[in-house]
C-alpha cells in the first residue's frame, strides 16, 4: 500500500516540478515550488524521517516561499 502512495506522490512531484519550470507566470512557479516542498516533506514522513520532514516543511514551504514573494512584491511584480 505504501508503495502505491509513494509512487503517486513521486509522480505528483514530477508534475509539480515540470509545471514550476515551464509556467510563464512567476508567482505560479513560486507556489508550485512551495507545493513541491510540502509533498517532499510528506515523502520524508513516509520514509520515517520526521525531523527532516519538519525542517523541509518549515523552510521549503515557509521561509523560501516567503522570501520569493517578498522579492516579487518589492520589484512590483505582483
Amino acid at each position, binding site marked *: 500500500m*505504501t*508503495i502505491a502512495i*509513494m*509512487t503517486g506522490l*513521486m*509522480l505528483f*512531484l*514530477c508534475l509539480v*516540478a*515540470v509545471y514550476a*519550470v515551464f509556467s510563464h507566470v512567476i508567482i505560479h512557479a513560486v507556489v508550485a515550488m512551495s507545493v513541491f516542498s510540502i509533498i517532499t516533506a510528506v*515523502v520524508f514522513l*513516509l*520514509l*520515517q524521517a*520526521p*525531523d527532516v520532514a*519538519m*525542517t523541509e516543511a*518549515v*523552510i521549503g514551504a*515557509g*521561509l523560501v516561499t*516567503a*522570501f520569493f514573494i*517578498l522579492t516579487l*512584491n*518589492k520589484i*512590483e511584480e*505582483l
Partner: protein
Amino acid sequence: MASRIIAALMIAAVAALALLTAVSLPLDMQRRDVGSYIDRGVQQTGATNQVSSILFDYRGFDTLGEATVILAASLIIGFVAPRRRTSMLSSSLSVIVRDTVALLLPFLLVFGFYIILFGHISPGGGFTGGVMLAAAVIIYSLAYCSGSRRIFLLDEAQEKLVENSGMLLFLGIGLVGLGAGGAFLANAATGVPLGRPGSLASAGLIPFLNLASGLKVAAGLSIVFFSLIRE
C-alpha cells in the same frame, strides 16, 4: 523547439530514475546494522530522539560547524545590506492578513519553543524550532510593520545580541565538556546526570545545546530577513 523536447526528455529520465529509486526504497522498518547508535544510543546519551543524540552528542562538533555556517551567512548578509531604511512593502497587506497573523502567531511561537525544548524527546530540535520562531518574526513584521519602522520588540542590535549569545552558549557548553575532564562538547563524560530517558530533564547537555542552536537560528534568519528587506 528542439530544446523543449530535450528538456522534456531529460525531465522524463530524471522522473523515471526518481520513481525507480523511490519504489525500491525499503519502507519496512527492519533493523539495519547501523552499529551501536540504535542499540546503545539511549543509554549513552539519554536522548530518546536518536537524531538529536547524534546531532548534538556523537557529532556535536559538526553541528558546531553547521551553526557557524548560519552565523557567517547572516553576518555577511547583514553586512552587505545598505544601512538606509526603505519601505518594507510596496503595498500594505489587508485586514484579513493581519487578523490571521494575530490568530496564528501565539500558536506558532508556542509550537516553535516546544519543538526546541522537546528536541531530545520527540522529533524536532534546535534548528527546526529556530526556523519556526524566525517564521513567526517574519510574518509578524510583514503584517504589522508595513512602514520602515518596526514595532516588534527586537531591533537589529538586539537580534545580533541574541544570535551571538546563542553561539557563545553553544561554545560555552562545549567548554563545560572540556572543563569537566571529557572531550570538547562531550555529554555523558562530563558527569552531567543523564536523567530518565523520555523525561524533560534528561539527556544531559543536549537540551541546552538545542536551546542555544534554536535561539541562534531564529535570530540569524530574522537578521537575514530584516537586512534583505532593507534593500
